[in-house]
């Protein structure tokens, strides 16, 4: 592991600095995309459970589209195709963004909306697992639909789906590696660059593999802490079926 402390060819620092920078982009992308995914995913998931109107259908189209096209193809869509389809001035402005941001922002939007589709399905499943009585009781108490979802249905649904959300949260860190295809130098790309500079394959990929393992462990820790913190005493024992 002495590799980490050797100077890089550009003379600006050590390989450790490259790893730290790669880690920063991986974490930034994952956490940013997770925020987008939670917001959009919850909205789409709720839309899919509405009784009638155009919204449930739009929600289904959203989910099917984003789930049935590979993430890498979606990445290329946001990076290569979208700027061509937009008016020329906007397209050019997007293409001329400064290096890390030019790939970071498309990757952020792409990964956020991709993960949102998967979260939407879980939110929908969580909402549908709730007994009908919850909706009836809320209506009887005079809750409007917005407050019913916000105060009664969603808090319970999220507790039900926390285990699958944990899985999704761990997946998003791994999925950030796809952003290397559009030029973002995140962790995996960093390993490849170090390998190309030093030919010390074992060390370069070994370090990054360990970093991913640590990330997975931490992500899991965080989620199980949240799971314990929000557990309701009456529903203890995990699956919340009253």
């Amino acid at each position, binding site marked *: 592991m002495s590799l980490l402390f050797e100077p890089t060819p550009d003379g600006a620092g050590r390989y450790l600095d490259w790893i730290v920078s790669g880690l920063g982009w991986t974490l930034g992308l994952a956490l940013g995309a997770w925020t987008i995914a939670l917001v959009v995913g919850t909205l789409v998931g709720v839309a899919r459970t509405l009784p009638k109107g155009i919204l449930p259908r739009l929600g289904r189209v959203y989910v099917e589209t984003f789930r*049935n*096209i590979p993430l890498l193809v979606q990445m*290329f869509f946001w990076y*290569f195709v979208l700027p061509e389809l937009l008016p020329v001035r906007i397209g050019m402005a997007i293409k001329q963004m400064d290096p890390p941001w030019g790939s970071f922002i498309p990757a952020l939007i792409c990964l956020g909306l991709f993960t949102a589709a998967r979260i939407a399905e879980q939110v929908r499943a969580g909402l549908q697992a709730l007994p009908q009585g919850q909706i009836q009781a809320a209506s009887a108490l005079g809750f409007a639909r917005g407050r019913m979802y916000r105060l009664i249905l969603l808090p319970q649904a999220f507790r039900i789906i926390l285990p699958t959300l944990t899985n999704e949260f761990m997946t998003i860190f*791994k*999925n950030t590696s796809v952003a290397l295809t559009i030029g973002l130098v995140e962790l995996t790309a960093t390993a490849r660059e170090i390998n190309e500079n030093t030919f010390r*394959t074992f060390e370069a990929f070994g370090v990054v*593999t360990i970093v991913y*393992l640590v*990330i997975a462990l931490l992500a899991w820790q965080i989620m199980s802490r949240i799971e314990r913190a929000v557990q309701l005493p009456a529903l203890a024992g995990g699956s919340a079926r009253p």
Partner: protein
Amino acid sequence: MMVDLSAIAAAMPYLLNGLWFTVQITVVGVTGGIVFGSLLAVARLSRNRIVSSLATAYVNLMRSIPLILVIFWVFFLVPWAIGWMTHSGRPVAVGASLTIFVTFVLFEAAYYAEIVRAGFRSISPGQYAACEALGLSKFHAYIYILFPQAIRNVLPILLTQTIVLFQDTSLVYVISATDLLGAATKVAQRDGRLVEMYLTVGVIYFVICYAASQFVKQLQGRLAYGVR
């Protein structure tokens, strides 16, 4: 920007060639992954502590790192490993397809192992006891009694994972292989037709995956009503 349909038509044979390789990776990944994954699942249930913890470590490791990283590992290390095994002392050039097949079996096995293990856990303990009471060997018990039930119980999840695998094959792009997406990229760069090519592969992937996921959904409905 206008979309040029004739460019898509002209590239179609080449794209279908790429799709054929995508299908090959999927088939190898599914069969190899399920076989190796089932062995891992059985190993995790083993009473031998060393066997079960080795299998657990393998599954957890593979599930914690990105597929692209595994592709790089195999891409750079398999040539060395073969060189070492054949005592030639230096790396032996290996084709991209072999690298890819090995990667997908190693990686997907970890995911299939978890699904098969869930299948084993869904079988009632009485089945295990009955096998023992009938004097079946471990091997026969797994092959004839336990495995078929386990697979049946998790069939929809197994198929959903296969759709994920099919989509994941696009990641072989990172070692410039010519799968469906790789073929599209090569045409796109040669003819300057990024928009047409990427939209076309998007539609192809969508049609296949959507049809497959609808099939799984139907199957799930049918299994749920089946006699258990």
